[in-house]
């Protein structure tokens, strides 16, 4: 269960950006989360509810975009989405497949209220 510390990292990144933009109110944090990571979406959503208290993201909504795992064979070029029991060997060539997507884990954007709007 490392989702709490991950939720805190997400909030720290969002807060740093918000401060840079002179905002003290984050309304949305949008992240991209690959399927081939160690983070569980539901656990992260739960952790975020706790971690956001007493931060600039106190009233923020966490939007999570899942990124599917995609693999490609460097020899024959075939692209596929491994499901459940991951197998990273090309069924045609018998050679290692490279992971094209699914390892993403980033804060994509934030939506903030800037000070001027609040006055």
């Amino acid at each position, binding site marked *: 269960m490392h989702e709490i510390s991950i939720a805190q*990292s997400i909030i720290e*990144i969002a807060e740093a950006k918000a401060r840079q933009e002179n905002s003290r109110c984050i309304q949305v944090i949008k992240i991209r989360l690959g399927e*081939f990571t160690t983070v569980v979406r539901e656990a992260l959503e739960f952790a975020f509810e706790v971690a956001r208290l007493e931060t600039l993201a106190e009233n923020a909504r966490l939007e999570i975009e899942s990124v599917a795992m995609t693999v490609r064979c460097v020899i024959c070029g075939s692209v596929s989405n491994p499901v459940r029991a*991951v197998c*990273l060997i090309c069924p045609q060539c018998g050679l290692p497949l490279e992971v094209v997507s699914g390892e993403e884990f*980033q*804060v994509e954007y934030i939506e*903030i*209220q800037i000070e001027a709007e609040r006055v």
Partner: protein
Amino acid sequence: MDRVLVQTNVLKANQEVAAENRRLFAGEGTVVINLMSAPGAGKTSLLEATIPALKGQYNLAVIEGDLQTDLDSQRIRALGVPSHQITTGTVCHLDARMVARALAEFPIQKLDLLIIENVGNLICPASYDLGESLRVVICSLAEGPEKPKKYPVMFHKADFVLLNKTDLSPASGHDLKDLMTNVWEVNPRAVVFAVSCKTGVGLEDWIACLREVIASAAWQSHRGYESSNLCSQA
């Protein structure tokens, strides 16, 4: 309401400290192993089997990560090798900052090999780069053959995979071949060693391989190369 692009990796703070650790290790010419497994797979037993074979020839040290106790660290010190304990409390993995803090009190000058024994866990440690040169994952045959498929991220990122407790194949009813196939399917590039820390079977190859890795790092350090230079020249 304004939308502001961020596009920052969630683990960026850890990655930055890991990069600093890696620079420090490269400067010292120290090979650093991040040793990971489920609880009870044999991380400390592997160290007990490996250290005596190397310690006459090389300067070694161990950093032990554990939730509560320093029992593993005591086992390492009994071998006559310096060992530093990081007690993580409730945190289920080591991160780069914990290692950086440990290095402040645990000097690594002139070390050939530093082994960091991570907290027993096949999930979280996979995400946290410590600045290591090699990721080594141990899986014991007694755990059954499905572990690589159940924890693919951990196995996928490993450089070396050791399959331990091969002596328990008959008793556990698990076939080493099934486990090897599953490792291969999630990580076709991993170097795999089938060993028994109890009987010593297979350890020779693992230790010979470590010697090669240390010799190669010493050569690079002697030539004044850092890994980044090697990459840009390639």
